[in-house]
């Protein structure tokens, strides 16, 4: 469903990604672990076509994203959506949150998520359903982002992320700015949503424990190179990369 092939990227003389390749099956969750500066957020940007790779291909649904431009790119974009780390920055502070949530649906009138079929073209109703899916009360529809708590804001961002029922939903450290008790709620929500709506996840995080919980396979990124890629159940297997082992040791208590 997603195929990242030999992607490299550098900013000026600074190499961020070197020859990164991996793929993602439909309905799968791949966890991507790395420290700051490992290039994990750059991968997200490249897949979202917010930036272009220097070389390599990013193929979504058999279409090479890195070759698309203008109208075609805009059209293709609806299959890949994102939830960013900082929910206070990822929502327009001057818009009531429900408008942010249904904005993608306004932009892609041709998209018809299965769970919104019955309320097509009723914007407010669509927002209500999306809110419900994300575990938000409909009383919060008209709030502005600053009137919500961090956890609620992240739920709004998730509601927007699923609004188009994308094939791939990318999470860039979605829980690292949240309190512990909220993290658990959000992770549970993500797990529920994935089985409910047929989506693939690319889950980017620095926390190996979070990734273990949510993903079926784990990729480890170090200084722009993919050093390890394995099934989550093999996390403690002996042939893990030394760097992965280091991360595991640090995470164990």
């Amino acid at each position, binding site marked *: 469903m997603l195929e990242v092939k030999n992607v490299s990227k550098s900013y000026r003389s600074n190499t961020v990604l070197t020859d990164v390749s991996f793929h993602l099956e439909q309905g799968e969750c791949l966890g991507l672990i790395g420290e700051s500066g490992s290039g994990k957020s750059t991968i997200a940007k490249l897949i*979202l076509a*917010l930036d272009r790779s220097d070389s390599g291909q990013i193929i979504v649904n058999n279409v090479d994203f890195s070759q698309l431009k203008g109208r075609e790119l*805009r059209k293709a*974009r*609806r299959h*890949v*959506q*994102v939830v*960013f*780390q*900082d929910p206070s*920055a*990822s*929502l*327009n*502070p*001057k*818009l009531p949150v429900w408008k*942010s949530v249904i*904005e*993608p649906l306004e*932009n*892609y009138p041709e998209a018809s998520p299965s769970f919104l079929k019955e309320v097509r073209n009723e914007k407010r109703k669509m927002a209500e359903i999306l809110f419900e899916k994300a575990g938000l009360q409909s009383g919060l529809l008209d709030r502005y982002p*600053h*009137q*919500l*708590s961090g956890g609620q804001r992240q739920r709004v*961002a998730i509601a*927007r992320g699923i609004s*188009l029922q994308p094939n791939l939903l990318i999470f860039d450290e979605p829980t690292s700015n949240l309190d512990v008790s909220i993290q658990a709620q959000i992770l549970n929500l993500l797990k529920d949503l994935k089985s409910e709506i047929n989506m693939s996840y690319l889950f980017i995080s620095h926390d190996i424990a979070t990734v273990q919980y949510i993903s079926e396979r784990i990729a480890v990124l170090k200084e722009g190179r993919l050093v390890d890629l394995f099934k989550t159940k093999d996390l403690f297997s002996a042939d893990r990369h030394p760097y992965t082992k280091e991360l595991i040791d640090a995470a164990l208590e």
Partner: protein
Amino acid sequence: MKISFALQKNPFALQWHLKSSRPMTLWGIFLLTIIILMTIIGPFLVPNDPLSANMAERLASPSLTYPFGTDHMGRCIFSRLVNGSRATLGITALVIITVLLIGIPIGLLSGYIGGRFDSFMMRIADGLIALPEFILAIAIAGFLGPSLMNLMISVVLVKWVSYTRIVRGIVLSEREKEYVLAAKVGGCPTWKIIARHLLPQIISPVFVLAALDVGKVILIISSLSYLGLGAQPPAPEWGAMLNDGRAYFQTVPELMVYPGMAIFLVVLSCNLIGEGLRDKLDVKSS
């Protein structure tokens, strides 16, 4: 606990409340309201025709017929002052609106689209900003010839730059923020990102800048009129009135004091409001 929670969610809430009660801002609003009321209904209430000269009563002292006395042509100063406010404030408002209509779109496009358009616009802006505003305005007005229209054009040409620059600066920092990226991922076309996501972010800082600029614009307009580059006699305009009174400053200083006071009060009230707005909206001074 309720308040402290509200504080955590919105740390500005409390400050907002305290700062909005700044007494000086309220004075500014009060003063400007009176001046604007005067501008709108004043001309219907004034005792005399501002243009009718009466050489027999030139330079008269204040009386019941002429509340502020008469000028060198025997015209009622009070009536001219009230009628002149239309010219001065009207031109100012028009200038500010035109400046916003030019400055904001160019700033938005320049900041968001970037590239050659941005470099081109910024070179022009650098050139304009390198010269002192007032001198530049005199040069342009002088080149175009003395008239109210040309006066306005010259002020607009001088003023749009600062708006473009401030808008561009905000756009440059906002466009990298995650909500703009999210809008892009969510399929927003460029115009929608600019109009729906970026424009609202620049409204309050631009508003503050405009409020603080009203005073400056009035001063430039009055100064140019004073130099004879703006309103042409016999039309009443505060700057032109100052100019008229110049010759009699030794003998009848009131001729200059009245229009001078009028300009002073408007500039003062606008600055008070502008500063109040700046504090309230928490905009960093550029």
